[in-house]
């Protein structure tokens, strides 16, 4: 099993290096965040030849998986419509993740936020 860990570690490092190479000086470490936190994910969007950054700001509903397969689910309300996206945490398509607000959550998966108003969500996740 040891070799498996090694291969996984190697691939994680490679994914991080891919980001380092793309961003050079702008490279930013992925901060430690947990369910209930509000974060901003800067995602690379490829349009034909060009690449630009799109921001996705929302509340972390949960994290899933481990190692290189770890993903997180993030939710925001866009024009009154709830939007959720899942990102692999080591994806080279993520330019940066910034922690905006630390929240409090008493469970690991915050699926129950889905039916709530923004005000209720704020109350539920405030420290």
């Amino acid at each position: 099993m040891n070799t498996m860990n090694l291969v996984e570690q190697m691939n994680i490092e490679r994914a991080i290096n891919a980001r380092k190479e793309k961003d050079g000086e702008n490279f930013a470490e992925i901060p430690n965040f947990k369910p209930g936190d509000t974060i901003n994910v800067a995602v690379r969007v490829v349009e034909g030849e060009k690449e630009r950054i799109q921001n996705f700001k929302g509340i972390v509903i949960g994290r899933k998986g481990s190692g290189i397969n770890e993903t997180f689910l993030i939710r925001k309300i866009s024009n009154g419509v709830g939007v959720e996206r899942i990102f692999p945490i080591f994806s080279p398509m993520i330019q940066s993740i910034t922690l905006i607000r630390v929240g409090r959550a008493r469970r690991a998966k915050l699926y129950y936020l889905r039916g709530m108003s923004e005000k209720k969500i704020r109350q539920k996740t405030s420290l």
Partner: protein
Amino acid sequence: MKAAILGKKLGMTSVLTEDGRAIPVTVVEAGPCPVVMVRDNEKDGYKAVQLGFEAIEERKVNKPLMGQFKKAGVEPQRYLKEFRELSKDVKVGDTLTVEEFVKGDKVRITGTGKGRGFQGVIKRHHFGGVGMQTHGQSDRQRHPGSIGSSSYPSRVFKGLRMAGRMGGKQITVRNIEVVEIIPDRNLILLKGSLPGAPNTLLEIIKQ
């Protein structure tokens, strides 16, 4: 160009590409495989190369086999397999490594699949089960149903699919892509899943 090597399945993980795709890969520890014997047309009537894999202690090998290893001048090996008509010219004592393969190659993998034990017809042969749950039917939702007619033929045909031992048989999968080679660790990463549990012996053949 035909190349072959023996390997051991280690497990699965993912590789993330630069454009953000995740490729599922199986990690296989392959080689180094010493050539223990070379068969040729004159003496044996066919061309083949016998490869060994995984060196073991001498006391674990019986004397007749040890004689073969001594003659070849290689360490005793746990596994021995013959491969026909490799395109590379090899001699006894040569060693084949993962560097026989390159990234992007399509290979064929043969190994023993996971044993499933005694399984019913639904899992083993993809039967649909007996149709209804009501109308007086009870206790037979996963049964095979009728296995034949009555007075004619008065017997059950041979080869009728029934419950029994499943899995644990040799499986070959083709067109498996080589995602990566790590020569200093003797590793080869192959796209997708492969037969067997971890530690299964696998034959990797490039046609």
